[in-house]
């Protein structure tokens, strides 16, 4: 257990260094937040400050976070396969799950840095006003969001472990999540058949939690409800992750095609 945890924390540091060395990831972290924020601000420019905060500041920040996950956590498995190291880390004495989770947490930290950059850019370049919120509350909300997004990314990474089309899928899942999870508009405007899909995806509830927490009109009951919903859906994804991990582990060993690119 101690060895696994040590590997987990070491992986976070190594992954953060490796990820940011890639030019594409540099674009995702240092540049894309400015494009997302600017485009969204131009679209929402004439709207109320509350809408601008919820959809421009939080929405574009979340777009940056999601993009960082798509081009890192979801694709790291494929990258290891390409380097020829996937089988090595899969069969290493340290659990594969700890390695993957370490990679995901490392990438998610970068994602939050890009989100922070977006917040600062909009605050100081476009002079947007941000609501004053309880630091403990927003800190707790962000912690729950980090865990929820990391668990979701873990499930995706497992799916991508088995797919030979991981790179194609990686390029495909960016905009559908922006759309379905309501990053830039409420999910109530989506077609009714699409809304149940939104409801089962953690990013939908993660951004909703941040919107509720940063809304001064929110009641305590609404905040507690938003936190509980996100924790609840995260627990469900943890169960899915455990089951899927076992299935992936078995299938990879039986098929023996893990490293086939």
């Amino acid at each position: 257990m101690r060895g696994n945890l040590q590997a987990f924390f070491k992986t976070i540091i190594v992954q953060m260094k490796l990820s940011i060395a890639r030019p594409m990831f540099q674009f995702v972290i240092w540049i894309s937040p400015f494009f997302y924020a600017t485009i969204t601000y131009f679209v929402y420019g004439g709207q109320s400050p509350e809408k601008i905060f919820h959809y421009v500041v939080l929405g574009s920040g979340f777009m940056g976070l999601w993009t960082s996950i798509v081009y890192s956590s979801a694709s790291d498995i494929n990258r290891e396969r390409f380097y020829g190291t996937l089988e090595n880390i899969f069969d290493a004495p340290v659990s594969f799950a700890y390695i993957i989770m370490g990679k995901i947490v490392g990438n998610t930290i970068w994602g939050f840095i890009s989100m922070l950059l977006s917040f600062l850019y909009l605050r100081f370049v476009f002079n947007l006003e941000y609501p004053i919120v309880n630091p403990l509350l927003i800190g707790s909300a962000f912690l729950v969001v980090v865990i929820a997004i990391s668990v979701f990314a873990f499930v995706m990474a497992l799916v991508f472990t088995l797919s030979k089309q991981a790179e194609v899928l990686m390029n495909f899942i960016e905009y559908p999540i922006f759309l379905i999870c309501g990053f830039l508009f409420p999910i109530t405007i989506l077609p009714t058949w699409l809304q149940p899909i939104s409801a089962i995806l953690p990013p939908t509830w993660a951004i909703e939690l941040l919107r509720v927490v940063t809304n001064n009109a929110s009641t305590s009951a609404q905040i507690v409800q938003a936190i509980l919903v996100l924790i609840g859906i995260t627990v469900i994804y943890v169960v899915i992750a455990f089951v899927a991990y076992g299935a992936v582990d078995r299938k990879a060993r039986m098929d023996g095609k893990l490293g086939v690119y």
Partner: protein
Amino acid sequence: MESMKRFFRHAVLSYKALFGMLDPKAYILVMLLNPLTQMIFFAMLVNYVYEGVGLEGYVASNALLLCVMSSVFGMMTVVMSDRGMGTLQIVMASPVNKGVLFFARSVPHIVNGAFTAFLGLVFGVLIFGVSIPVESLLPLLCIWMISIFSACGLGLILGSCSFWTPSMHLLSNILASALLLLSGANYSLSVMPSWLSDLAKFFPLTRGVELTKAIVNEGDTSQFVRLMSEELLLGCIYFAISIVVIRYAEYLARVKGTMEMS
């Protein structure tokens, strides 16, 4: 006549080489479904924010923007795919005219960009229930072909950078994002600071988006000749620059020995 045949034969072959090895579902996901979800996302956004005002123009403009997948990322592969396969030195050492060769490789991407854009328009019409006047289809076709030609010219300038640098994903994503930002597909150019809207005039697709909105929303073709002449001129300048840049890049790659760098 033989040289024309060779030109088109090379265009078709290079395109087949690029996508022939892929699974059809990879092509559908990357070149069709991915751009379509982008179009639906932005159309949903502007429909919500502007409460349906001018939706037809925004749907059509976002459909035009789908050509970025071909004109930036596709054009990038015109040079980069050879480098990846280790055949770039052979291509560059061949006696063929490089300008003609790379332009031939660009043609399928121009056609593919137009195909994706029109498919986006069809999906936009079906999903959002907007109507595009039949009489505006021919001007739209003309505007889009010229705009995509121009965008591919800029894409080829970018593609020539792959002689120097392996960071093409960084550069191509910056260009694709810049086109989305500067084209004004999702807002009026008047919301931008003046220096940014002035900068937008030097980029492709800005005029195409402006005309698309004017024709689809108001049936206004009064600016057609002026804006399309400017866009065509811009495209020709881009292609001329790209040929010069490719020659210079080839020279640098020979001198620095970076042609096989990956």
